[in-house]
């Protein structure tokens, strides 16, 4: 596309695009317009439909209805190949370089320059790669291996590939800054502004409002699968943006700062179950201190990379802190492994239930009794009757939908799988629950019942630490929300001060 002369014709337009899944509406009548030479921000909460939108544009999933207009051509849906041919490139959150290929090879895979005998021209590849790296200012060797790069360098390499090698006209950057270092972030911004000048269009997806303000020309806000508004970034400030994202007005008396720690502690008459003192793990979290009382539900709110998962994993013995203390029932404890954590009454519900939570090829009964099986012993052997009755009890309590307790777990739906993991950790009757995104990827009904379970059954005589992909879940169940930003506690809200927009701003590292 020649610079300048067509600048008012959009490169890409989505018209009333919807994507329905059984049980959920991921995207509903959404519109998006992309002009040449613009950086278009897309922002919204988790589950607002950002990733669905991106997948439709890059051809990974077909929309249920709606039109995609690419340079004037109408499409009902794109395939990944078509998207590539139309110059659409995508860089995702998790960089995917081939570890054993050199930087140059990674750049030119799969379209290697060849001579006419189809033999790869290595000298040309290496020379061009070195040239591209020099231009972009990335300080890595073209001959370094993919596995020798830091995550940040890998991410930058893929952005470079999309811009300079694949020569895409429309580039989707899906939360790429989540894994970029500060230095590489600057390089990215420079690259973006150079490419903008070449009339390319960039779709910029991020959770950080500061970035939208910094790099984007226009922004489209998504909420509950709908495009709420598309606006020039220069006309919005961060407060307005945060209101658009959460859909909630700031209260009038928003000057009043929530009183933190002192009043929080005074409100708690229950004994402290767990207290964390200046816990630090370099690169993940720093100086984390808080108390967890009995019958209390505390939420850890923060963006990806804020350290919330790592804190829970440390308390459950999977990761280990560099310095700091964990005090359980008045005694400082080292938690070396999940087995030790369980012995001390700490149960962890992992964020990734398929990979870390379940043994899918084994039965519901097997999975439910996995953590508590030692207590079902009768002499040397298992008390199978007791096991079965306990299993049935849990299936009823959590209303897990399964034809029988002997069904293999991979036949269950996502929500029911999650209930099985919840059942497994309940069965051990722990004193402290660490719930890492218990509501991730499950349908609304199950979500409600799991949250209800947390609020009633789990907190009985126990303390709960919970994280969630959506703030509304935390607001619904928590007594207190601790806000993390880049590994540090930046704020704390008590139940009476809960306000989605404010917590959202705090998660961005800003003063609400």
């Amino acid at each position, binding site marked *: 596309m020649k610079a300048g002369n067509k600048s008012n014709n959009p490169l890409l337009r989505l018209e009333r695009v919807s994507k329905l899944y059984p049980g959920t509406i991921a995207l509903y009548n959404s519109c998006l317009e992309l002009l040449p030479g613009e950086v278009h921000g897309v922002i919204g909460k988790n589950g607002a439909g950002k990733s669905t939108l991106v997948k439709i544009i890059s051809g990974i999933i077909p929309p249920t209805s709606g039109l995609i207009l690419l340079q004037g051509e109408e499409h009902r849906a794109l395939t990944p190949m078509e998207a590539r041919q139309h110059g659409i490139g995508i860089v995702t959150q998790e960089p995917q370089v081939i570890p054993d290929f050199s930087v140059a090879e990674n750049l030119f895979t799969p379209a290697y320059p060849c001579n006419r005998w189809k033999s790869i021209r290595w000298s040309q590849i290496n020379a061009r790669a070195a040239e591209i790296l020099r231009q972009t200012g990335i300080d890595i060797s073209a001959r370094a291996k993919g596995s020798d790069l830091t995550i940040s360098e890998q991410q930058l390499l893929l952005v470079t590939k999309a811009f300079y090698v694949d020569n895409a006209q429309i580039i989707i950057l899906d939360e790429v800054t989540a894994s970029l270092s500060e230095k590489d972030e600057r390089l990215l911004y420079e690259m973006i502004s150079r490419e903008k000048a070449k009339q390319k269009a960039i779709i910029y997806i991020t959770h950080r409002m500061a970035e939208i303000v910094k790099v984007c020309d226009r922004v489209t806000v998504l909420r509950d699968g709908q495009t709420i508004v598309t606006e020039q970034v220069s006309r919005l400030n961060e407060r307005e943006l945060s209101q658009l994202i959460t859909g909630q007005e700031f209260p009038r008396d928003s000057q009043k700062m929530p009183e933190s720690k002192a009043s929080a502690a005074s409100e708690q008459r229950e004994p402290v179950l767990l207290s964390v003192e200046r816990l630090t793990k370099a690169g993940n979290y720093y100086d984390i201190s808080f108390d967890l009382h009995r019958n209390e539900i505390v939420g850890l709110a923060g963006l990806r990379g804020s350290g919330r998962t790592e804190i829970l994993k440390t308390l459950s013995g999977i990761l280990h802190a560099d310095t700091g203390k964990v005090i359980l029932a008045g005694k400082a404890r080292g938690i070396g492994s999940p087995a030790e954590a369980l012995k001390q009454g700490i149960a962890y519900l992992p964020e990734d239930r398929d990979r870390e939570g379940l*043994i899918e090829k084994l039965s519901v009964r097997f999975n439910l009794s996995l953590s508590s099986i030692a207590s079902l012993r009768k002499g040397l052997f298992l008390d199978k009757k007791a096991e079965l009755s306990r299993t049935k009890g849990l299936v009823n309590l959590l209303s897990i939908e399964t034809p029988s307790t002997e069904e293999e777990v991979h036949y269950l739906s996502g929500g029911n799988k999650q209930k099985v993991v919840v059942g497994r950790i309940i069965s051990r009757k722990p004193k402290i629950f660490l719930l890492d995104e218990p509501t991730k990827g499950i349908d609304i009904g199950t979500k409600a019942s799991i949250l209800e379970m947390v609020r009633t059954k789990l907190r009985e005589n126990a303390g709960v630490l919970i994280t969630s992909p959506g703030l509304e879940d935390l607001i619904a169940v928590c007594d207190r929300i601790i806000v993390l930003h880049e590994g540090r506690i930046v704020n704390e809200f008590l139940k009476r001060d809960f306000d989605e927009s404010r917590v959202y701003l705090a998660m961005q590292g800003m003063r609400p």
Partner: protein
Amino acid sequence: MNRRMRVELFFLDNLIWAIIVLFFGINAFFTPSFLKYENIVNILYHSSILSMLVLGQGIVLITGNIDLSIESTLAFAPAIAMLLATKWIAAGLNPYFSIILTVLIGACVGLANGFFITRIGINSFIHTLSLLIILRGLTLYLVPFAIFKLGPVYTFLGSARMAGKIPVAVLLMFFIFFIMAVILKNTPFGRYLLATGGNPIAGFISGINTKRMVVFAFIISGSLAAVAGLLAAGRQDAVNNSMGKDMVLFTFAGAILGGCSLSGGKGTALGILGGALLLGMINNSLTLIGINVFILYATYGLLIFIAVILDRIRVKLRELVFYQENIRKLRSKANAARL
């Protein structure tokens, strides 16, 4: 779950035994001598050595690992024990103690395997491959000629027969399989083994010391390989350096036929026994038919191939049963909604 589904699943989960019955029937039809009491005892007797290895391999597969070294341990463990008893220690050894020693040597080989695989983090295939070669090499070096005359106590398990001409080895085989069945099905330890192979990360997070479970599995397989060595040595009243050679690949065939999976987390002692016995039966029937020696090995392989294909079909059918059950449920839900 309705009754029909339960029956279907029971049949599919125990398909190996159905195949055994079928194979038995076909053989009995074509070669009547197959059915003779002596021949059946013979099949069991000849299966007993391989079955120990198959069981060991099965346990290791359950934890998601592979043990190639068992066939060398089979020769190595009795070789060391007998060298000690007949050569290295002038006074000799108490024969009962040498039996225990044999099993202990196997257990130590397993412990070493487990240590290197879990603590140093070597892939189990590569590690046990090196041990397969090392132990065979050591046995060849230490036992250039067979060691004869092992004594009646040491050969009792491998060669003695009880009333009704039932070999002690067969009784021992059933006894060990029974013990393993109880351990796998009825103890927390058995659950932990399955969980370790089914999903090591989830197992670890739910509080299992998964590394220790892998070490235990290798100790079990090493010990069982030593027991197989005891039986083999006892049968021929000698320890020679080629015992167990080329058996390890058949242990995979047997374990997979018995319902284990190379990716771990699957397997029962009963199924593994079935897999081992089917291998023994195939071998026996081919010998009885008097098939050309040169084609025997290939035919053996072909029959294993067919059996493994059948096993894949079994897995697919099992999925189909659940799929149909889901359809049925959805239909009845829809019907209920209409009413």
